[in-house]
């Protein structure tokens, strides 16, 4: 079978690492080999958090430039910044809701126009899927489930050989019991957001 490399990027506190593990577990549930890599420590203090999930017969846990099959961007500027990981036939799923960097908040630099970022991405990759994960997560019942919305959108894109059921099974098994239903709702909203 083919191999898939997924690059995830976001800002500390957005739950990208949980999404990373859920994606890998779901891929294993679907019968594939999976591995991930994460970065912990200083990088996480309000900074960028990048992680990867490999599905299939791959041993290397990290992704070189131009080698991501899919990119899951939890924040529009971070999606754009990580575009070096993509190539012409990559699929990009991005949240549209910005998290303003501190430098911008204090007037040092501007936050770019998100639509223009997306226009560029659209012109360079096979497909760009955008959604407001923050709004959908709130609709699901908790702003903290934006990560599940994003996973839902990735699953809905059909890029990966991982069924909706495998994701749902993983969320049921891995999430804390009282959050399972909200997480599943968030996942569904993301899945249907295309």
């Amino acid at each position, binding site marked *: 079978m083919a191999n898939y490399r997924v690059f995830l990027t976001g800002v500390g506190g957005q739950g990208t690492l949980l999404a990373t593990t859920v994606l890998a577990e779901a891929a294993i549930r679907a019968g594939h080999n999976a591995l991930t890599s994460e970065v912990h420590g200083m990088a996480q203090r309000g*900074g960028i958090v990048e992680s990867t999930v490999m599905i299939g017969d791959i041993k290397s846990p*990290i992704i070189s430039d131009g080698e991501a099959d899919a990119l899951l961007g939890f924040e529009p500027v971070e999606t*754009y910044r990580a575009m070096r990981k993509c190539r012409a036939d990559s699929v990009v799923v991005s949240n549209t809701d910005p998290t303003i*960097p501190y430098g911008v908040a204090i007037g040092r630099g*501007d936050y770019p126009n998100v639509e223009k970022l997306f226009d560029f991405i659209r012109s360079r990759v096979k497909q760009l899927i955008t959604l407001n994960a923050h709004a959908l997560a709130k609709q699901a019942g908790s702003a903290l489930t934006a990560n599940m919305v994003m996973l839902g959108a990735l699953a809905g894109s059909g890029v990966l050989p991982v069924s909706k059921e495998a994701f749902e099974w993983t969320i049921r098994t891995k999430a804390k019991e009282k959050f399972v239903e909200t997480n599943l709702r968030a996942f569904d909203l993301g899945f249907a957001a295309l």
Partner: protein
Amino acid sequence: MHPLLTQEVDKKLLLLGNEAIVRGAMEAGVAFATTYPGTPASEIGDNFFRIAAESELYFEYSINEKVALEAAAGAAVSGVRAMCSMKHVGLNVAADPLMTLAYVGVRGGMVIVTADDPAIFSSQNEQDNRMYARLSNLPMLEPASAQEAKEMTEAAFGISEALELPVLLRTTTRLSHCRSIVTTGPLESSKTRGAFEKESSRFVPVPANARVRHRVLISQGEKARNMACRSPFNTVTGTGRWGIGTSGIAYNYVVDAIKDLGIKDRVKIFKLGFTYPFPEKPAAEFIGSVDKILVVEELEPFLQDNLKVTAQTIGIVIPIAGKDPELFSRLYEFDPGMVREVIARFFQLDYTPPRPVDIKEDTEAVQVPMRPPNLCAGCPHRATYYAVTSVLRETQTEAVFPTDIGCYTLGFLPPLQAADIFICMGASITLAAGISRVTDKKVIAFIGDSTFFHSGITGLINAVHNRHNFILVILDNGTTAMTGHQPHPGIEITPPGWDKPYISIEAIARGCGVEQISVVNPLNLDKTKAAVKEALESNLLSVIVAKSPCPLYEARMLGKKKKRGFVVGPECNTDCTECIDTFGCPALYKNTAPDAKTTMIINDNVCIGCGVCIQFCKKIRPKKI
């Protein structure tokens, strides 16, 4: 039950490299584990901490890596299996006991984990700790996957007991923090009680004994080399006249590259897992079976040099290359694409790398704003830095700020810029001694609570005794915050079941002979500034303990309390931006909305209600409830 304690055998778990090490140690029946937390090793200790609460395992967060290694050595010389884990620079701290522990050796298996950080994700350097194996003459294993991390950890205990030497297990960030499938083996019940059998000719390395023990170490080293030569962790696979030597995480990049390049039938891979002492026999056979060798290893040319030495010994002259301006760098980490490209170049293969999307080609020329890490909203360190820098501004005093290692190192960023130099754990105090002795500026050193316990105390005694004159600010947030909120001897908010005595930083400072000490809550700006002023006016070495818990830790341990919110009043409509120019809380930002009525605005979702800003700006006030 802790998932790593599952009794189920052949169970497939998706584990971090660090978790796999813990499982391997449990499968080897480890009974005693120590650490000082540090990225990328922290999860090893954190898992042992939780496991110890529900098993026979003894675990401690030791005060520093030297102490951790010595405590583990004490258990191991008494016949109990022990593990000690740390980040790469931690082994510098523990290097003193390491070198002589190698002479006296151990009786129970002892494994020392060193987690290196190529590319410097969360460290101050990227030293290659494989050099420590050579320096100390101790055996070393280097896993390439989480599964191997488990297997090698378990095997390392056996190797250690067979040789009566501690064994180094070396990982890197990518191995420690990759997650892959690990198959469980049976858990071994641990032997928790030992006996210290006296043998002074061995364990008391006075010169006469040490000379003998050095000889023993060298001869054990030869036994270790024989073990490495026969080790299943050192393998040659594939066929062909091209050779690649590799170890650790880079092995994975090699395997993927060879598959991608379609040269499986032309390449032999010499994969090393038991990398020290260098397995000369299989290396010689490998060298004799190929025409040229590319060595793929991150950081220093460790395998490369050893392969060259072996080739010279057996009189074979073939190209053996790796670290070379045209091939691999000694800097940073590798990645799969880089390895594929260098392999293609070295063996002269046609290869076109994938073409990455380049945002520089965006005709809109978008400036992407940076997103550096920052102290959190409500962080008491920011309040302390603000108090210090405000007093210096008001009194027109210039100061030099030696600092130390922790979240508070981020105080070097604007607008606080309260960090001018740091080197290693504890060096704030000792650098301050030297700088204050030879310069005319005020010297104000900053050190965190956990770092003070780790290696600040000796420097403080030295400073008092030698009459050094500077201000030491101890940033006491009641936890080891940076590495994930591990406890230390001075914590007041304690984990469930914690029964260890509290040790007061203030009492330590007094015990060190410091006469001028003030303990302040940095969230109280006036009192903190008064303490700074008093210290500046004094001619004595002074210590300020700025004590307020890390809000993240407090929220996690005590539950989130809804604190009072704050708003910017309508009179904030001038061009004054002093709050962001001097304080820089991420909850305070410029109001750029088209209908903005105030210059600044407070982000309610980010503000935790610490209330420091209202103490320096009258335009900010509590929200009416």
